[in-house]
Every structure is written in C-alpha cells, then in structure tokens.
C-alpha cells in the first residue's frame, strides 16, 4: 500500500545507485589520539548504509566529519546533489543547505519548543521570507508558514506523532523524542540522512517502530540513509551494505551476508579464539 503523500521528502536529483557521497582517505586526530585513519567510503543514492564497530571505533567522528562538525586533517569528502561539492571545509550550516541532515546519539532537540515547532525549524532552510515580512507576518512570510505547516503534517502522519504534536518535546517519552528528532531531520527534505544510533536505549517494540519508519523513509521517499547502530539484528535486517570500523580504520565493507562471514570483523568483535 502506498500512502497518499503530496510531498516528496527527498531533495536528491540522482537516480538510485548513483554515487552520492565519496569519502577519500579521511584522517582525523585529536592531538595524539587517532580517531579516523585513512577511511574511504562510497555511498550510493537510495541505499541504507550501516556503519558498525566497537565503542570508540570512530563511527560518530565519521558522521561529524560528514556534517561538518569536525574538520578532518587529511582526505576529502565529496557530495553530489545538483553538482559535486567538496564539503570537507564547509561549515555545518552550508552542508545542511546542500541536503545533508542528521540526528544525534544523545537527543539534541530544541527542548522548549513544541513538536510542531521543532519540525518547522527543520524547514528553516527552505523559508526565504525577509525580516520585514516576518515582522508583519504578511505576504510571503504568512504564505510560507502556512505551506510548511501543511507540509510538516505529512511528517507527523508518517511518524505517527499526531497525538503529541502540540506538546513541548521535553515532556515526551524518550522513544517519541527520538521520533521527533528523525522528523526534524526529514523536515529539511534531505538528500542524505545521517542517523546516529536512532534506536539506542529503546525496547524491542520501539526499535521495531523505528526500523519501520527508517524503511518507510528509504523506500517511499528514496532518501539515502547512513546509520550507526549497535543492534546487530536490526542492522542485518534493514541495511543494504555495511561498513565496519575498528580503531579508526575501515576493516570491512559489504552486504550483510559478507560481513557476517568476514574474518576481520569476527576478530574485531570477538577477539582471538
């Protein structure tokens, strides 16, 4: 069954399978500590790419480099969305405007705002009304606000948060907050969505819901997803390809079945026999 969506959440112009993000020889260190060492990775339009690895393997550091929060000392990140952009040295807000959205490991919502306002603030990059129009709430500003109010309602429906849409996010349960954070990222109409442990700390029912939402977003809207997750069951189920990091290096990459059989991965997770 297809939902009757009037809006595409996806802003990518690529065809499925085309290269969307290319990471070349990424190196990041904090003083002596090496966080990422010569990591190369390609992400293709429309796939779900999982990044796994033991704690401290550099997974979040990799996402932070992609979204511009960390500046890698070595390597390049190239993102294709209406032309190829070298995003390695761009500021986070510029990268967001190019179409990369993300969620955080520890929920980083705007906690005094309502769910709707959180979603609407995700639309900020698409709102163009000037200061004067906004001050008078007249003309472009009003039209824009009404249009996006209607648009976020689709996200509310998709994520099944209609009952809480007017509540302040700090009053919501953890699982719902995670959903709102996903919704806020979707409100940006991203081409590439980075999810940092979207299911951390959830019970199995909530995990199931979240997995379903992620698959909906990927299949119905065709949004490319890069996700970090520790639950191997979920990873093996929903991802198309998996990259494994250990001590800042990529030790394996491939389909779930290939990763399951990979000796280096088994070694990294289980140690020597």
């Amino acid at each position: 069954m297809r939902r009757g969506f009037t809006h595409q959440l996806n802003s990518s112009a690529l065809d499925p399978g085309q290269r969307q993000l290319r990471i070349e020889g990424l190196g990041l260190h904090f003083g002596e500590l090496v966080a990422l060492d010569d990591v190369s990775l390609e992400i293709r339009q429309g796939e779900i790419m999982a990044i796994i690895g033991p704690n401290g393997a550099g997974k979040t550091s990799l996402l932070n480099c992609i979204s511009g929060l960390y500046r890698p000392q070595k390597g390049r990140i190239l993102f294709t969305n209406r032309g190829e952009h070298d995003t390695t040295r761009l500021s986070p807000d510029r990268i967001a405007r190019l179409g990369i959205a993300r969620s955080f490991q520890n929920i980083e919502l705007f906690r005094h705002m309502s769910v709707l306002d959180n979603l609407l603030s995700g639309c900020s990059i698409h709102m163009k009304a000037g200061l004067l129009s906004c001050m008078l709430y007249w003309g472009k500003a009003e039209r824009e606000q009404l249009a996006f109010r209607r648009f976020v309602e689709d996200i509310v429906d998709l994520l099944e948060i209609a009952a809480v849409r007017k509540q302040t996010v700090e009053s919501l349960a953890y699982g719902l907050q995670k959903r709102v954070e996903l919704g806020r990222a979707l409100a940006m109409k991203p081409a590439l969505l980075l999810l940092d442990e979207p299911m951390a700390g959830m019970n199995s029912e909530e995990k199931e819901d979240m997995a379903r939402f992620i698959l909906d977003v990927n299949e119905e809207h065709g949004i490319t997803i890069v996700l970090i997750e520790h639950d191997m069951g979920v990873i093996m189920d929903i991802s198309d390809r998996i990259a494994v990091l250990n001590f800042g290096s990529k030790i394996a990459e491939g389909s779930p079945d290939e990763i399951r059989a990979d000796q280096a991965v088994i070694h990294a997770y289980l140690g020597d026999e």
Partner: protein
Amino acid sequence: MESGIFHTTYRADMALRQTPAEKVRVVLAVLLVLCFPFFADRFYLTLANQIGIAVIGAIGLNLLVGYTGQISLGQGGFMAVGAYTAGLLTAQLGVPWYGSIPLACLATAVVGGFFGIPSLRLKGLYLVIATLAAQEIILWIVTHWDAVTGGVDALVVPDPTLFGIQMNTDFRFYWVIWGLAGLTILVTVNLFRTHIGRAWIAIRDQDIAAEVMGIGLFRYKLLAFATSSFFVGLAGALIAHYRNIVTWERFTVDVSVTYLAMIIIGGLGSVAGAIFGAVFITLLPVFLNDAGQALRGVIPNIDTILPFAEQAAFGIVIILFLVLEPRGLRRIWDRIKDYFRLWPFSY
C-alpha cells in the same frame, strides 16, 4: 468554559489568539491602554510613560537574552546610543524628532550588531563580560567625546512639536510611546511565528543542532543583536525626546541590571513576560516608597533609612521571585488563565 480547541484550517491553527477568551483579553488590554490617559492624573501618566519605554526596552532585551540565549549587560550602553543619536540629530543637525527616532534605532542596531560579533566565539559568562565591555566602552565614548556629545554635561534636546503643537507633555507623548510600544509588541510576537524567531530559540536551546539544521549561527546571532538593539535604541530615543535632556547617568550599568531583572522576573523568552516585568520593576519602587511614607508615624527617623530600606526591599523581592517562581510573572499569569479556563469545573 470550553472542552477543547478544534481547528479546521491551518491558518486558524497558527493564529496568535485561538480562543474567544484570548481575543477578549487582548481587546480589554487595548481598551485599558486607550482609556487610561483620560482618567489618570499627571503622576500616573508619567509612570505609564516610563512603563511604556521600559516595555519597549525589555522586549528588546528579552529578544536577545530570553529568546536567543545571548546574555547581555550592554543594555544601558545601547540605550545611550539611541538616546544620544536621536538627541544629537535633533539638537545639532535640526532633524525633526519623528525622523530622528528611526535613524537612532538603525544606528543602535548597527552598534549592537558590531558588539555582537564576539558572540560567535563567546558563550555564557564570557559573553556577559564582553557585553559589559561594550557597555563601558560606549559610556566612556559618550562621556569623553566632548566635541560631539558634550561629555559629562547634559545634552539639551529641543521640544518635539507636531503641526506647531508641543508633543512632550505627559498626555500627548503617552500616545507616541504606547503607539510604538504596541507596534513593538506586534512585531516581536509576529517574528516568533516565523523561521527567524524559531532559529533564535533553536540557537538558545541547542546551538550545534541548530547549525546542523542549516541555521547559520553567525548570521542569526548578529541579527538577534541588531534587532534587539533596534528596539533598545527606540527606548533610548524616546527617553531623549520625552525628557528633553540626555545625561550619561541615565545609562549606566545599573540600567542594564535593572532591565535584566525585568525580564527575569517577568519571564525569560516571552513577550508577555517582558511586559509584566517592565510594569513590575517600574512600579515596585513607587509602592515601596508609599509603604515607607505610610510607616512615617510608626518608626522614628524613617527618613534617614528609607532610601536604603527601599533598595534592600527591592533586592529581597527579586530574590523571593527567583526562589518561589523562577519562571516569572508570566508563569503566574498562565496559571491564573488555566484556572479560569475550566472554572468552575476544574476537574
């Protein structure tokens, strides 16, 4: 009494006032402001005018501190920029008073934006110190640039006139002040219905997430400083034309602290809170003074201790507020509204 709020259009859902009770309250408030000067005597008119100016200044400060989370101690300095710009434009260059006010607002916005630049690097207490520096720098320039500002001497501003009528009587200037205060309220309330206001709140709540959502921190922080200073400059410019006289003592760091007290007591991050705080802090010394006068017969030598007792009482009231209702008068007001929304069937 109502059972719930139901909307059939997104426009109604996003309206500022959603229930009949809310609309009635706004009409009553406007009527009160419109009728007040016809009944009040001169003393209360002066107070009302002071409150109006404080409302504008407090909303400006709350926009920066309460909504955007950039704590500022530069309020007095920015008001001085507005007051001196308006005063000098009229006194020295002969710009009509109604022309000097918007120019003063713009000048203050530019100065505020300039002193907002450190906010990209500094947060919290460090930013407080940077804005304190702004306050002191501005006041130093005002008191030492004798050729332009007249230094520590008072700057005398000609009476504002409109069609030959002198405007700065308490009654006539009331309309100027409260007209502009009404406009300030409307404009700021509207701003927080749009992406610009939301971006400011986002920066306050979670600046890293805001940046990752595509909200340019530098741009929006500077915009917050400039917009806030615009209104603070307006308050300053009104003081210049209302009082006819501009002196640096009116814009010391004490003023910055008083305005911070207004928005903290009223409620941070709320236009209504700024209004409540401005009313409360302006009226508190008057009440304290009245109370002191009433005790004149009871306590001997009260005249010698009265000024100190007033200041101490002022401090105690603020401390009590912070302890008992940290979210300010706005929160108390919300509770009263909630109570009467379901009254008399509160359960």
